[in-house]
């Protein structure tokens, strides 16, 4: 059973791994995306994520369920929104699978698809101002 969530509080990776570490699985792995101190040659101070929750939750669940049925694994996926400091996790995906190969493939599919389709937007706060990131574009915030 896939588990997905969007929350404002810090992510708890241990709890996420426990959800997928069920007895049929021989491999448990997780991917963690964390806030980097630089982006596009600019220093980054912190990030803010905005979400369109109704569609984001539905899309995350669709991705997790697709991975589960394609690779026969168990997926738990959580995204954090709001203000997130450097070094803190913004997204975490835990995959449990009978063997490691399916697990790696499933996890990669989940994070790649999430970045592409889940309606969540990142705003980078830099010393010279803030930028909305939309796909490949960084758009300076107009005040």
């Amino acid at each position, binding site marked *: 059973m896939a588990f997905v969530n969007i929350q404002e509080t810090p992510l708890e990776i241990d709890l996420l791994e426990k959800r997928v570490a069920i007895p049929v699985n021989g491999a448990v792995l997780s991917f963690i*995306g964390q806030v980097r101190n630089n982006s596009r040659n600019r220093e980054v101070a912190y990030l803010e*994520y*905005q*979400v*369109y929750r*109704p*569609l*984001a*939750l*539905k899309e995350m669940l669709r991705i997790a369920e697709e991975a589960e049925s394609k690779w026969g694994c168990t997926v738990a996926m959580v*995204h954090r929104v709001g203000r997130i400091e450097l070094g803190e996790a*913004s*997204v975490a995906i835990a995959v449990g699978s009978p063997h490691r190969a399916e697990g790696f493939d499933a996890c990669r599919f989940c*994070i790649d698809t*999430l*970045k*592409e*389709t*889940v*309606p*969540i*937007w*990142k705003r980078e706060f830099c010393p010279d101002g803030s930028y*909305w*990131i*939309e*796909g*490949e*574009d960084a*758009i300076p*915030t*107009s*005040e």
Partner: protein
Amino acid sequence: MTQANPVINPLERTHTRLIGAHMPTSGGIQKSLISGKEIGCTVVQLFTGSPRQWSHPELTEETVQLFRATHAETGIQELIAHDSYLINLAAPDPAVMNRSRGAFRSELDRASRLGISWVVTHMGAHLNQGEDEAVQRLIESLKLILDETDALGWTAGIALETTAGQGTGLGWKFEQLGTILKGVGDHPRLGVCMDTCHVFVAGNDIRDAVTFNHTIEEFDKLVGLKYLKVIHANDSVKGLGSRVDRHAHIGEGTIGFEAFRLISTDPRLLHVPIIVETPDAETMHAVNVGKLARMASGIIGVQLQLHGSYSDLTPDSTVCLELPCGSTLVELVDAAISAYPKLEGIRSHCRFAIKDTVIDTDTLLQEGDVVALLPPSSGG
């Protein structure tokens, strides 16, 4: 239930329908007309006395004059009264019956003096003492009161309100309402008030064109559209056939917007004034009256919710717009860009969603839709 931001570039209201609300009378009964006018009512319903008390202070000539002068000043086109909740014109107990008839005569007296055209009343309750006998007693009460008050030259009519079927209340089935009207006989001062919430929870669906039309035809066959003098437009908290009467804001309950669009534009009903009796009168009557006036003019109100970089390009991240009925997402995008040229970019590389579903450009929009604008994602 949120109160929306002001509409950008509102469209012109072209309807001639009388639309209003049940307005509070605190500070004097004439206050209902002033506050009604302020929120755009062209018809107002009010209590002329306290709805939970048997006796009312005498309506002085001074109060009547002040009310009539305010009526003239505000230009409210029609006035409706609602009677006291205590009145039971079908009561099995002779003492309660006497009291009810007396109180209802007084309702008609006050309404006539104030220039109110119809007094809406529930049809009483049988209190498990025999339903057929109760119907007969109600018919007798109505005949008696109409005869007496005709003789006195009183002008206010009686509008029997369709009920929800709660407890032992009479008149929730169209057949029974028909029986009562037939029993009293045609009378120019006898009419009916249809309450959308009551009709719906009593088991008559009105949520789309087919069911709405069927219910109106049934009403015409069993009651008679010629009797329809007032419409109470209320959405419902409870479901179809639940027989539980709890009013919800227009479009936000179990009935939904389409029924109210139909009721405000159906050619068979255009001459009948519409009154809302929804909760939170102070803040929400203006919103609900506004929704009906918009629908009567063939206009829908929609909101565009901006995300990502676009949320910084307008004064408020939710933009309220009006569009002609039948507009699609294309028209919404055009209207948004015409109001805020900076939004031009939304045409080319954004997705749009309503609730949890992505929509196409030819998606037909409806009153109350909140459309989310989704720029390319950058989660992870």
